[in-house]
């Protein structure tokens, strides 16, 4: 009981004397706040990006890609192959009994970003009306769907928000062709909201890509049918296409980009954490020096080294934790839910939202506490070993 009393009393002394060291304490809190803010901003960006891409893939949708093509961008599927795929087993049908197979082709067009007024790549995807049937959650939120055969586009809601001249009724020029924006669609916050959609036949014609698709997107009766579909593709020498579930495809895309964001974020945060650590050490050594007289006096009276150690360590931890909380709050206020766009893996813009989850905040607090512990333990050791004769120095 008496040891607890001692530790409580010395820790209270420690905290009561903190106002005398406001500047040093404050600088530690600010340094840790910066570290945590930078780390969490990166992590929230990675998380948001990943969520957007992940949300784009369903388990009961399969993609046919050219064998060896890692991504849609460098894949191709012919019209003949598309016809063969329609014969494949396990594919769901639409209301009229036709198999839900959507040949799709996208071309890269220019848009002007509102934020920077600069050109950025946008994917213009040619799809058939069947294409929307493979994407549950597709919803026209303004205007109407494009009419088959017309030079009309519908734009994803993220494109409308981030790019100039995409309102319903606007006319846009891509190369030599002119298009009218007739509608805006939502698709559950997925990557497709960063796209422009038009009729596949029109896209093929105007961009001289007749009879060529990049992939076939098919709706499965249920996810387990994927195996049979793979076997079907393997077994036909005219097909030999790679079959992946849409969920797997986007998960893989998300992994590489999220990995990149994290590879940037962590080292930067750790480098800054080392700076904050130097600051914390300095602050805490100053704290111990300024309390030398008091610590030594307590030692004379008979206090052990442990209370001085614990008190100093707790002071450091408290400053770091404060920084950690402040950093989380700043990130949340500045970034959470903020919309950003970046180059996706096929070099077109992907619009996503920063997403600060509790798990990420935990990581931010953790790095703050590491700074607090390491920055406190050495000064705390010095406090515990304080020579009693410092009691004679004039305070």
């Amino acid at each position: 009981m008496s040891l607890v009393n001692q530790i409580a009393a010395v820790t209270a002394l420690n905290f009561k004397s903190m106002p005398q060291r406001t500047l040093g304490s404050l600088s530690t809190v600010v340094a840790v706040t910066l570290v945590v803010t930078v780390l969490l901003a990166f992590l929230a960006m990675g998380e948001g990006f990943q969520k957007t891409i992940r949300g784009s893939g369903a388990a009961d949708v399969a993609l046919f890609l050219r064998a060896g093509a890692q991504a849609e961008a460098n894949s191709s599927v012919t019209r003949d192959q598309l016809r063969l795929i329609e014969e494949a087993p396990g594919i769901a049908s639409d209301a009229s009994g036709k198999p839900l197979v959507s040949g799709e082709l996208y071309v890269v067009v220019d848009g002007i970003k509102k934020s920077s007024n600069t050109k950025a790549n946008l994917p213009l995807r040619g799809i058939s009306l069947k294409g929307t049937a493979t994407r549950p959650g597709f919803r026209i939120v303004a205007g109407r769907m494009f009419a088959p055969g017309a030079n009309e586009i519908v734009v994803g809601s993220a494109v409308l928000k981030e790019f100039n001249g995409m309102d319903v009724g606007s006319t846009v020029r891509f190369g030599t062709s002119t298009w009218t924006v007739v509608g805006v669609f939502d698709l559950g916050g997925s990557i497709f909201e960063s796209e422009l959609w038009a009729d596949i036949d029109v896209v093929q014609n105007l961009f001289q890509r007749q009879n060529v698709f990049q992939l076939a997107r098919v709706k499965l009766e249920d996810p387990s049918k994927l195996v049979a579909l793979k076997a079907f593709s393997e077994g036909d020498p005219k097909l030999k296409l790679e079959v992946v579930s849409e969920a797997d495809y986007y998960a893989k895309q998300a992994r590489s980009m999220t990995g990149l964001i994290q590879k940037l974020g962590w080292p930067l945060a750790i480098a800054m954490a080392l700076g904050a650590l130097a600051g914390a050490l300095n602050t805490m050594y100053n704290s111990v020096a300024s309390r030398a007289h008091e610590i030594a006096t307590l030692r004379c009276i008979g206090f052990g080294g442990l209370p001085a150690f614990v008190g100093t360590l707790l002071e450091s931890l408290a400053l770091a934790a404060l920084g950690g909380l402040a950093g989380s709050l700043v990130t949340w206020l500045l970034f959470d839910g903020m919309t950003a766009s970046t180059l996706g893996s096929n070099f077109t813009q992907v619009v996503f939202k920063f997403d600060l989850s509790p798990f990420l905040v935990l990581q931010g607090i953790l790095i703050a506490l590491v700074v607090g512990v390491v920055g406190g333990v050495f000064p705390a050791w010095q406090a515990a070993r304080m020579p009693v004769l410092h009691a004679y120095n004039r305070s």
Partner: protein
Amino acid sequence: MVGPIIQFSNVSKRFVKGKETITIFDHLDLSIQAGDFVAIMGPSGSGKTTLLNLMGGLDQATEGQITFNGAAISGLSEGQLAAWRAVNVGFIFQFYNLMPMLTAERNVELPLLLTKLSGAERRQRVQAALALVGLRERTGHYPREMSGGQQQRVAIARGIISDPKLLVCDEPTGDLDRATADEVLLMLQTLNQEMGKTIVMVTHDPAAAKYAHRILHLDKGAFTDRELAA
């Protein structure tokens, strides 16, 4: 109260600074009787503070033996020595050494945190000690709200709160004016006479030394008063 409370036998104290060794005491003998009030005088650098530190268990002798009530304190570990100090010695410093962010009451309570006393018992003792030094009305005041003499009285209350047999005071009136110094010295005298505290006090002030029963003169690490040894 008979028998020495403190006994130095053949005590040497040396400080090593780099290649240099400074000898402060070379085979010093000293004995102080329980209940005595001893003043130690001597020029600056003669070793007065070092002597008090050895007596109060703040520093260790390089050689020889120091006993307290017959038991050796030389050879105790740092932790054991701290525990020993908590029970046996009260310290009074020239600059009071109060915690500036604690009230008089809280300052006096500090040594009791090292005991098993309950909060209520601690408070009761603190009130009694502050009353004893005439600061009953000042319990809630902070050091900066008190005069030097009052602060030193709080320090004395803290020094005696856990009822140690020995009080060591290093120039307790060095920072006070004459009248205030006399008040503090009178208080020490009362503690010596009425509570039987053994007091060892270092002072430069001959008027302060007069309050003691015995004055020892230290010069270059040795006593010049021939009669006192053993």
